[in-house]
């Protein structure tokens, strides 16, 4: 399927929006979890190991965004 310049631009913008949206979502989610985790660690420092993965869990969202963005960019060429 041949894409015009306009179509290609549309896809590029869509890819950018995907990364933007997922990035914001990750940041917001990590903010909430991070604040709660620091509170928990202050009470019980040995919880660090349990809490660290919880904090980075939302990072998966932005990874999904990255994958989708590359799938979209693949359509341009």
């Amino acid at each position: 399927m041949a894409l015009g310049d306009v179509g290609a631009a549309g896809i590029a913008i869509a890819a950018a929006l995907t990364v933007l949206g997922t990035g914001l979502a990750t940041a917001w989610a990590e903010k909430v979890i991070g604040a709660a985790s620091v509170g928990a660690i202050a009470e019980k420092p040995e919880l660090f190991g349990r809490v660290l993965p919880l904090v980075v869990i939302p990072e998966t969202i932005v990874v999904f965004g990255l994958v989708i963005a590359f799938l979209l960019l693949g359509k341009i060429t």
Partner: protein
Amino acid sequence: MLRPAPMARALIVGPRDALEPVVTTLYDLKLLHIVDHAAGQEDLEIGKPLPAATEASEILVKLRSIANVLQVEEPKGSVPLEPLAADLRQKILALELNISEEDTNRKKVQSLLQDLGHKIEGLTPFAQLPLTFEDYRGYENVEVLAGKAPREITGMDTVTPDVEVFSVPGFLVAFVPKTKATAMRDFLGQQGFTSVPIPEGHGHPRELLAESLAERERWEKRLTEIDEGLTTLRERYSTFLANAKVHLEIQVEKAEAPLRFAVTEHTFIVEGWVPQETFTRMKADLEKIQDVFVSELESAEGHGKPKHDQPQAEPPVLLTNPKSVKPFEMLVNMFGTPSYHEIDPTLVFSLAFPMFFGIMVGDAGYGLLWMAYGIWLLRRWKNRPWDFWKNLLVAFVWGGFWATVFGVFVFAEAFGVPFHAPVGALTPVEAYNWSDNILHLSIPVYPILEKLHQVPDFIILSVSVAALHLGSGFIIGVFDDIRHSIKHALGKVGWLLILVAVYVVIIVRAARWPLVDGTIPWGYAIWNGPLAWFPRGGIAMDSVGFTAANPIPMTAIYLLVAGIGLVLVAEGGLHLMEVFGLLANVISYARLAGIGVAEEAVIFALNGIAIEFFILPGSIVGIIIGLVIMAASNLLIFLLSTISGTIQGVRLNYVEFFLKFYKGTGTLFRPFGERRKSEV
């Protein structure tokens, strides 16, 4: 290596007279993980501390207070235990008396100095005025207003012309008639004036100030003397104190051990776990003491599966990994200690974590840097105990090793500069490389994956890593579960089948990703290489990209159905939701590619700025600026990639890998007599 050391449950019985020698022997053996006896359990009470306990704890308290005053720090590493004088108690008591006196003196002098400080502060402004103390007092109709004035105050004569003012910058004394005093105070207050009390005294304040200053000097000298005395004491006694502390803590721990035993009127009973292979040694040593009997209650290995009605029968876990794998136990324990009945995942972790780190960092320069720095630091830390940082450092050295391997053979780059000019490089800056521009000889290694140009391939590499990693997790899960429930093991087999199906479908779809610069995409290479055995032919779905040439393989669909069937039978319908979770887990590994590409992109841009300086026919100054920029930006990316490589590497293991099979509910084997760093 994959299993914790087998444990035997030991029961030690003896007469009460034998209590002390048994405790001493157990402490020296460091073999028994005591199971605490709860008071009243089986109608047996807990023991009383040995008589030495009270005295030892009393001295220990005194010693800690001395250590606190002298600010003796806990020595790093192990204390060389010197033989202590027999009159330990006398020595500590004498020292305490001496030091508490000095300490009281010091506190007294300190508070005196504080008072003097306030007095001097109050006197200083008055000393600058040409008035004696007598001038401020004894008026019937005049009020004296003295205080701080942050800025110069004018116009006081508008309140009353009968005002006499003495002032130095920042300070002011006004003599006003009593009738006008309130008005004057209000006026001054508006100008930011705050009044201060007039000090007591006779003569000129200057004399009193000089006197106070001299006094302060005297007391300061005294304080220095006291501090010097305490420093001398600290230097002389710090080793003794550290030694005595360890000694006393051991004594207290020994003396309080009976609190963990069960006793009757004439006998005592100790229960605990001991590594199977050392049971005979412990038994022989203990039975040298008269009338003491040791018997093996049960061998934990013998009863095979955990009995859920006896949770206290779970033995402690002594991990038995070889020295090279041992440092990774710390990272596994941070998630949870393996339970006695499951496979210890440390070995897989010790391979997977550094490899993930290596893929994400993916640069020969940073890899070599970590290896060199890590090995140098480990040599320096020879005598340091195996704490968090030392264990982590070993993990970094291994990570550096894999980063070098991937950096050389897969990505072919060092410090963000490629070995050869990338395909399709347009400008000299983009084409800048080790072979042509720096070394002037052709490095015989070419990249098989260029991070910035083959992102889809990088993602496929990550997904393949995911399949291997998660697959090994499910396989470990099968072996864990098969010991106590065939049904649960079948569930894990079902998940393994689903994983294979999902992976194959992703690879088939990726096999026809657009070709970049004429290279063969990795999906295509894997599908026709390592996965060539997989049966072809299936359903084409054009709308989502599975063309007639690349249909979804029927076998993958069968595997998926079979896997779902097994999960349905073994774990129930609710768990089927997890299929999407598994898919998300697989894609989650794309972070390996994401971080690799992101860091490469940043260092490529920063290096580009530096390279401009090298390429332009410029002065030596330009080259120096370029080198500085390059060093700074490489340091930045080196640190950033280490941080994200560590966190994401740990996360992939904790969240994606461990949650598939690992319980981590064990307790670590802590034999009686093993000293941990005490908290003061």
